């Protein structure tokens, strides 16, 4: 039976694009600066989307003549929200006209550069936020020299102004989950492209790897 199975498995013809004669060209194409341009466009698009959301919130609040109290919350898939967002935008909404999108773009730039500085990455983006009561954890993905890196950043609540601890994982983020005081991160390792999982115990602004 093995021979018959082998016969069947050997039947599909490999597409021309994947034949060795075309692979060198394929690799060269995918190393081109086009990819970087795509990445920049994605980041700019994301920034523009955030700008629109905040503009809408600002306009909404202004229409209620309630400029002095502005609560801006970003709700994430896990149901938590970013407490820092308001701090980043304080200057923008108090001094400027709500309709002036340019200020929000500047504010958004601060958010991104703040994350990037915390994680030490280029093109950093927040994937998940978790509120553990004492500690706020940001799961961030970015890159260093075009290699994906994932970081877990810890901030001590309630102020959450300063980074108190961080763990950097050498690979591409897939998902994160919370289980009580534990945070598990699944990522594709840069070492061997396999899926890896790290479990962190979170507390008092500290991250400890569970062995």
């Amino acid at each position, binding site marked *: *039976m*093995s021979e*018959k*199975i*082998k*016969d*069947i*498995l*050997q*039947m*599909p*013809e*490999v*597409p021309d*694009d*994947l*034949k*060795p*004669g075309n*692979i*060198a060209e*394929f*690799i*060269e194409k*995918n190393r081109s600066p086009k990819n970087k341009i795509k990445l920049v466009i994605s980041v700019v698009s994301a920034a523009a989307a955030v700008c629109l959301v905040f503009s809408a919130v600002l306009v909404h609040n202004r229409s209620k003549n309630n400029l002095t109290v502005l609560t801006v919350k970003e709700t994430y898939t896990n149901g938590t929200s970013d407490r820092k967002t308001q701090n980043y935008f304080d200057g923008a909404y108090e001094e400027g006209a709500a309709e002036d999108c340019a200020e929000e773009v500047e504010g958004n730039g601060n958010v991104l550069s703040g994350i990037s500085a915390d994680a030490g990455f280029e093109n950093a983006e927040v994937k998940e936020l978790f509120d553990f009561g004492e500690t706020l954890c940001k799961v961030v993905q970015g890159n260093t020299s075009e*290699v994906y890196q994932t970081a877990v950043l810890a901030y001590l609540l309630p102020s959450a102004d300063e980074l108190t601890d961080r763990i950097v994982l050498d690979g591409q983020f897939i998902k994160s989950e919370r289980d009580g005081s534990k945070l598990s991160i699944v990522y*594709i390792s*840069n*070492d*061997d*492209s*396999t*899926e890896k999982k790290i479990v962190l115990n979170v507390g008092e602004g500290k991250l400890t790897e569970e062995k």
Partner: protein
Amino acid sequence: MKTDDFKKDVSLAVKGDAQAFSRLYALVYEEMYRTAFFSLRNEHDAADAVSETVLDAFSSIKKLRSEDAFRSWIFKILMAKIKRKQQEYANTPSDISEPEYEMVLQSEFKFEHVELAQAMYRLDDEERVILSLSVLSGYTGDEIAKICGIKSSTVRSKLMRTKEKLRSYITA
């Protein structure tokens, strides 16, 4: 390819020589594509998995610890891609396409092939991966265990059960 040429190509590929990498890839590309095709059951995703593997392998070939391990190393990367796509299928069941075994059989039509191919595509994801690595690529139970990240004993028992399953599908 001679061992010396193989080692030379590995060291050239590590330095970023895409031509040298394509010569190494030539040794494994058919098995890679067919394993991906059989595991994912469609041409488009199989091609995606292989091309993603090529890019990942080329960019991380510096991390290959031994030239002899090239074949199992690139298959390990491929398996990670296949597994990821299978997880995507599991999360979006409505997007699962019909198996394309009819296409496989177009070139050489035999009734026994149709029956066996249909039976093979009734196997689950892991069974198809193990079967293709064993029968098509000729990997041993230990090698498959390393590539898939499961125990050797599990591989052997799964392989035995898979073949029994196929027999029962065909004779049913």
